[in-house]
């Protein structure tokens, strides 16, 4: 039972967005993907979410090729939070979250309960009756997070559940970033396989069981954050000089960027 790519590639025209990549996401495990802009992080996520078909190789979910799944069954098993949402209609917040229940036939009452619980989980219960288009960017982000959480709130009849998040912390303040990590860990503890794209290496190190570093459409390092995050690896991938400390409390690796040479001169 896993969500995995087998030597999957993605090409658009002549440009290669993703080199052959084999990756396995297991239930209960948190995988973070980091890398510079255009490294292929989102392409990988789009392959895993069946948003695009691989140009070669395959992607399978719980043992079955992703394209062979019935759309509704897949939606009960795999939830995806994209980077941006283009929703510009004045839905009530609870209606937006309730969209996450559309692949289910669990009944109105149960759906209402789940919507409330999902909103509460991302500290947005008070937004429930507000108009979505009146919210700030960060609040909208949280509402969409609640929507994808509501989508896989209950165990699926089709195997382990997976949650794919593309830069979920991009517009969140510090407190809500921490809350998001807690929520993600909570879902992982229930057996959900989580994969998130983040730019903040420290955030990735704090929550991930496994860290993937990508560059130029390739996975260049993969493993526990403490092993993957080295001064040399960060230099190679991001082309920046850093120092590595241990977090005073957790001991997790803490990446600090050096002052740039230009400034020092």
């Amino acid at each position, binding site marked *: 039972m896993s969500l995995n790519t087998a030597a999957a590639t993605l090409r658009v025209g002549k440009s290669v967005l993703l080199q052959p990549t084999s990756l396995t996401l297991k239930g209960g495990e948190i995988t973070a993907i980091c890398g510079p802009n255009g490294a292929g992080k989102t392409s990988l996520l789009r392959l895993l979410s*069946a948003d695009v078909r691989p140009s070669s190789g395959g992607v399978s979910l719980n043992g079955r090729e992703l394209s062979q799944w019935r759309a509704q069954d897949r*939606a009960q098993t795999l939830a995806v939070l*994209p980077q*941006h949402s283009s*929703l*510009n209609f*004045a*839905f*009530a917040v609870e209606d937006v979250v309730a*969209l996450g229940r559309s692949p289910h036939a669990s009944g109105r009452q149960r759906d209402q309960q789940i919507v409330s619980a999902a909103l509460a989980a991302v500290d947005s219960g008070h937004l429930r009756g507000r108009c979505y288009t009146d919210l700030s960017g960060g609040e909208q982000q949280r509402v969409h997070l609640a929507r994808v959480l509501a989508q896989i709130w209950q165990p699926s009849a089709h195997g382990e559940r997976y949650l794919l998040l593309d830069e979920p912390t991009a517009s969140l303040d510090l407190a809500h970033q921490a809350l998001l990590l807690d929520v993600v860990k909570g879902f992982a503890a229930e057996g959900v396989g989580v994969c998130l794209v983040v730019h903040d290496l420290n955030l990735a190190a704090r929550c991930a069981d496994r860290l993937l570093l990508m560059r130029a459409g390739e996975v260049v390092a993969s493993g526990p954050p403490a092993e993957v995050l080295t001064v040399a690896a960060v230099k190679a991938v991001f082309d920046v000089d850093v120092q590595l400390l241990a977090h005073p409390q957790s001991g997790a690796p803490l990446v600090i960027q050096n002052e740039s040479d230009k400034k020092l001169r």
Partner: protein
Amino acid sequence: MRLCSPKMLLCSGLVLLVVAMLSGAMLGPVSIPLSSLLDGLATVFGFTVQTSEGLQRDLLIVSAIRLPRMLLAALVGASLALCGAAMQGLFRNPLADPSLIGVSAGASLGASLMIFTAGVLLPGGTLGHLSQTVLSQAVLPEALGLPLMAGGAFIGGSLAVLVVYRLATGGGNSSSGTSVATMLLAGIAISALAGAGNSLLSFYADNEMLRRISLWQMGRLDGANWPRVWMAGTALALLLAGLLGQSRALNALLLGESEARFLGIDVEHLKRRVVLLTALGIGVSVAVAGAIAFVGLVVPHIVRLVIGPDHRYLLPASALLGASLLVFADTLSRLVVAPAELPVGIVTALLGVPFFFSLLARQRRTAA
């Protein structure tokens, strides 16, 4: 945010439609009192037998002239508003009105082309003769002309939606949603093309036909008769049957195509269904009543303001209010310059254009 509950709006829409139909039946060159209408209804349903000569005359006016016209107005209004609401859901943009993005124009071009080809191909019938009989709404050729025009309008309308959708959404793969500018520009291009096609038809027309063509392009309901009512009724029934069940899917589509797919919606199937059904609705409306603008823009927008964008209520409420609006507008068009009448398309355009400008201004403000 919500001004009233969806159920309340549906009920008031129903009341509004009844009021619109009653006033439409009563008002006109000959005004008919409500009591006569009620007596007439009682007679129709067999409660009483009325033989007064005045009443018989009134009933004849209502049943032969005003009733089919009102029914046609209601059916066309409902279809247009429903198509507008569905199309705005498809484009994920509240400005997507069938008349603005060229669907009505494409439909009328399709209808004209159909008449043109039929005129060339049919043995014995010269182009001018056939188009004239079709457009002059003579009773006999209508049996041939109306389905031909509706078929042509359907094909023209579908092509227009497809072209505009492809252009404006980048084939649906763009994550940025619909480009309003491209959508409206594509509408202008298609309208220009349709204008050229219609000019070509006008080129072969005589004076009387020219007048009829131009009146038809404005959208009008005075050609109402029972075959047209049946046709519009069938189209509306198909629209309702095909769209009401897709409300949840349309809601999900507002998030974007990829997001809707993640939620388990068969997006390709949904898009195909909406494109075909709206093209059918617009095509038949254009064939029976010409291009009536802005109903599909104004009505869903008002409904959204009152009860929000949820398609489960938006679609039926738009249909009800669209029907009421067009019946009212048609009654108005019969009254303002009585005993002559204005084409109803002029009335709806006069109502709709200021509305459209204010919407455009607001979109610009929020985008800035």
